[in-house]
C-alpha cells in the first residue's frame, strides 16, 4: 500500500489474515489465542522521533490494556504521502506461544490533511470500545487532526512536559478542559508523573498525629529539574493540587516572578480562630540543575507559626530513590528512603488508560494552576 490512497479494505483484510495465522490448528490442545481488545488508542505523533517512541510503547501496553493502536505519524510536507502497515501485538506464554493479542495499524503520513487522516482512522476503530487519543508534543490542541478527532474520543492525553510555551499552553489546556466538561476526559502525562510525589506527600498525613500540621502549612518550596528552558508546569500542577485539596485560594497579588523563580501567595482557612480569619501560604517554585533532567527534585512543606513542622520529599543521589523526612519540633526526625522510579511512557499511559471518566482531582489541580498562570506578567 502506498501513494496517496490507502485501501481500508486491504487493511481490514490484512488484520483478518493476521489472525488466521495466529490461530492454532484445533487439535493443538484446543487452546485459542485471545484477541482481547479493551480500547482503541489513536496515537498522533508529530514526527519520526515520536513515532519511534510510539512503536515501543504500543507493545508494552498490551499487557495491561490490549488494544487496537492506530499510530498516525502526522508530518508536515508539501506533497501528500500516505502509507499503512499492520501488526499483531501479543503477550507470549512462557512456552513462547502468543496468548493475548492486540493490533497495531501504522499510518505514516506526510502533508496529509486532517480530513484525509480522519477518513482513514475512523473506519479502523473497533466499534463499541472506548477511543483514546494520545497527542504528545507542543500545542496539541492546535493540531488540526486533534481538533477534528477530539469530539469522537473518550479521552485525550497530552503531555505538558513537551509543551513549547508551557505556561500559556497550560492555561489553554485548562480552558479546553472546562469547555469540554469531561467529553472527552483530559489527561496530562505531566500530571501522571507527579503521582509518586503526591503519594509520598499524602503518606505523611495518613499518620494521625501529623494530620493537624497539614492544615497549618505556611510555606511550600518546590524545586524542579531544568536544563536550558525551564518548564514549571509540573510544579504549578503540584501547587494547584495542594491548593485545591486544602482549599487555598489565590490572593489579589498572587504571583511574583524573580528571574526563573515563581512566588505564589495564597490564603488558607485558619485553624482554630474565628471564621473570617485567614492565613497566608507562600509557594516558591524554582528550577535547579539536577541529573534527573526533568521533573520535581525537592518538595518542602513547612509550618512555622507556633510549633514548627517540616515535611520534605527529595530525590537522593541514587537514581530512582527519594528520601522523605518529617521533622516536628521536639521530636526526632522520621526519615526513610522510598522508591520514586522514573516511569516509562508506557507506564504513564497505562495508568491513564485505567481511568474511565474525568479525573476530578487533576481537573481541580489544573484549574487552580491555570488560574495562577493567567496572572503571570506577560
Amino acid at each position, binding site marked *: 500500500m502506498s501513494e496517496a490512497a490507502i485501501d481500508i479494505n486491504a487493511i481490514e483484510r490484512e488484520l483478518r489474515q493476521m489472525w488466521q495465522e495466529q490461530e492454532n490448528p484445533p487439535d493443538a490442545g484446543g487452546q485459542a489465542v485471545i484477541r482481547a481488545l479493551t480500547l482503541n488508542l489513536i496515537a498522533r505523533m508529530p514526527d519520526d522521533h515520536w513515532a519511534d517512541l510510539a512503536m515501543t510503547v504500543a507493545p508494552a501496553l*498490551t499487557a*495491561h490494556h490490549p488494544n487496537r493502536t492506530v499510530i498516525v505519524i502526522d508530518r508536515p510536507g508539501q506533497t501528500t504521502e500516505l502509507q499503512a502497515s499492520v501488526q499483531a501485538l501479543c503477550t507470549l506464554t512462557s512456552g513462547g506461544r502468543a496468548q493475548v493479542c492486540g493490533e497495531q495499524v501504522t499510518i505514516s503520513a506526510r502533508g496529509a490533511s486532517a480530513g484525509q487522516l480522519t477518513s482513514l482512522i475512523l473506519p479502523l476503530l473497533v466499534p463499541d470500545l472506548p477511543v483514546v487519543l494520545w497527542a504528545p508534543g507542543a500545542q496539541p490542541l492546535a493540531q488540526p487532526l486533534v481538533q477534528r478527532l477530539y469530539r469522537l474520543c473518550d479521552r485525550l492525553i497530552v503531555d505538558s512536559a513537551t509543551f513549547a510555551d508551557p505556561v500559556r499552553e497550560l492555561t489553554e489546556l485548562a480552558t479546553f478542559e472546562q469547555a469540554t466538561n469531561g467529553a472527552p476526559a483530559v489527561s496530562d502525562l505531566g500530571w501522571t508523573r507527579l503521582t509518586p510525589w*503526591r503519594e509520598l506527600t499524602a503518606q505523611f498525613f495518613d*499518620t494521625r498525629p501529623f494530620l493537624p500540621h497539614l492544615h497549618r502549612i505556611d510555606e511550600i518550596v518546590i524545586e524542579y529539574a531544568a536544563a536550558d528552558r525551564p518548564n514549571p508546569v509540573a510544579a504549578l500542577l503540584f501547587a494547584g493540587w495542594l491548593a485545591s*485539596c486544602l482549599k487555598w485560594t489565590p490572593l489579589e497579588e498572587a504571583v511574583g516572578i524573580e528571574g526563573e523563580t515563581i512566588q505564589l501567595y495564597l490564603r488558607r482557612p485558619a485553624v482554630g480562630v474565628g471564621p473570617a480569619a485567614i492565613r497566608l501560604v507562600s509557594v516558591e517554585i524554582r528550577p535547579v540543575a539536577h541529573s534527573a533532567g526533568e521533573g520535581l527534585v525537592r518538595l518542602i512543606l513547612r509550618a512555622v507559626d507556633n510549633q514548627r513542622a517540616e515535611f520534605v520529599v527529595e530525590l537522593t543521589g541514587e537514581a530512582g530513590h527519594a528520601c522523605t523526612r518529617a521533622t516536628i519540633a521536639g521530636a526526632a526526625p522520621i526519615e*526513610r528512603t522510598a522508591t520514586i522510579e522514573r516511569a516509562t511512557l508506557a507506564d504513564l499511559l497505562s495508568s491513564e488508560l485505567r481511568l474511565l471518566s474525568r479525573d476530578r482531582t*487533576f481537573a481541580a489541580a489544573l484549574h487552580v494552576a491555570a488560574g495562577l498562570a493567567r496572572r503571570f506578567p506577560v
Partner: protein
Amino acid sequence: MATSAFNNPLRAGLRIGRTPEPCTMVIFGSSGDLTSRKLVPALYNLARERRLPGGFSVVGFARRDWTDEYFRDLLREAVNVNSRSGPVDPELWASFAHGIQYHRGSFDDAEAYTSLAERLAKIDTERGTGGNRVFYLATPPDAYPTIVAQLGAHGLAHSRGWTRIIIEKPFGHDLASAQALNAEVLSVFDEDQVFRIDHYLGKETVQNILIFRFANGIFEPIWNRNQIDHVQITVAETIGVEDRGGYYDSSGALRDMIQNHLMQLLCLVAMEPPSVYDADAVRDEKVKVLRAIRPLSVSDTVRGQYGPGSANGLPVRGYREEKGVSPTSQTETYVALKLFIDNWRWAGVPFYLRSGKRLPRRVSEIAIQFKSAPTMIFADTPLNDLDPNVLAIKIQPDEGISLKFSSKTPGQPQIRPVTMDFRYGASFGVTSPEAYERLLLDCMLGDGTLFTRRDEVEASWALLTPILQAWAEGPPQPFPNYEAGSWGPAAADEFIARDGRYWRRL
C-alpha cells in the same frame, strides 16, 4: 472495609490506597522459616511499593543469641533469595533495615516481655510509631497461649495506639481445641484485634472469585442448582511432608488443608452476595455457608496415604519412611470428600473436595461443572456425548480462569471441547503480589475481611471434627494406598464414579 476516623484531604483521587499508620510489627518466632521465607520479603516489597509509612519498624523475638546486625544481615539474605522483586535495592534496604531490631527471649520468660514493652515504648518515641502494634505469632502452635497470656499480663494487649495480633495456622486441631484457643485469645484481646491468617485468602485469584461472581452480572443467574451439576475443589501438592514430618503426623490432610484452605474456597464459591463489601458482612455470609453444610459421615470421605513412588522422575520415599513419621502411621496424606449445602441455592448439588501430598502436579483449582445441554440435537455426530461446560478458577500455579465449551471442528462434523483461557499473569503482564503482602497490609489498615473470624473457624471445625473422631475410632486403614506421584487412591475414583462423575484430569 475499615474506615478511619480521620480524613486526609490529600488522599482523594490518589490511585493507591491509604498507607497504614506507622507501627511496629513484633514477630514471635522470627528466627524461623516463615519469617525469612514469607514475612520479611512481603514487608520489604510493601516498602518498595511505597505502601508502608516512614517509621514502620520490626522487632523479631526468638531465643537465639543474635545481634540486630546479624538479624538484619540474615533477613537481607533471605529477601535476596525469596523476594519476588529479586535481590534488594541496597539504598532502600538500608532504610528499611534501620527499623529492624532483634529481641532475644523465650516465650515463657516474663522478663523478656518487660524488656519488650520498654523497647516498644522507645521505638514509639524514636520512630513515631505512636503505640501502634502488630504482634505476629509465627511460632509453633503450642506457643500461642503462652505468648497471648504474657502479652496480656504485661499490659501489651492495649496501647495508646492500636494493637492487633496475627495468628498463623493451625488454629486448633479440633473443635474443642479451637474453642479453647479462641477463649484464651479473647480473654486478652477483643475479636476485632484478632487476625487469624489463612494465606489462601491473600491470593489475588481467590479474591477474584468474589469479583468474578458479583461484578459480572451474567454469572449470578446461573450460579445455582438449576444450572450447576457439581463443583470440584482440588488442592494438589507434589511435595511430601519435607521436614515437617513430626508435625504433620499428628495433623494430616483434613486438618492441614481441608479445614482451612479448601473450606475457605468453598465458602467463596458458595456464599450469597454480601450486602456490602466489609469485613463483617462478608464473613457473615461465609459462616452461613458453613452452617448450612449437611453433617458429614465417614462414608462421604476417602482417605489415602502415599507409599514409595516417584516425583519429578526421581524415586521418593513413602510417607511412613519420612523423617519424624511413625512407621505404622495412620495419618492421611490425601482426603476426598463430598458435601452438600442445604440451602435454596445449592440443595442437591454435590461439592467434591480433594487434597493430597505427592500428587503428580501442584495445582489448586475450583471447577464449576454445568449441566449438559438438555437434549442432544447433533445426534449424528460421531462424538455425541458432548462435554459439559466447565468453568475452572485456577489458583495455582497459573492464576486464571478458563471456560470449556464445545465447538465444531472446521470442515468436519465433529464437536470438540475448546477451552478459553484467561491467565492472570499473562493478561495483566505483572507478577501479582504475594498473599502475605496483601494480608499484612490489610491487618495494618485494620481490615479483617480476608481473615478468619472466630465463628468461622469454629464452624469449620464443628463440621470436620466428627470425621476426625470416627476415623480415630474406626478400624486401621490399609495404608499406604497410593503411590507417590499418582492421583491418589483408587478408592477416590470409585467414590466419585458411584455418582456417575469423575475427577477432572488436571
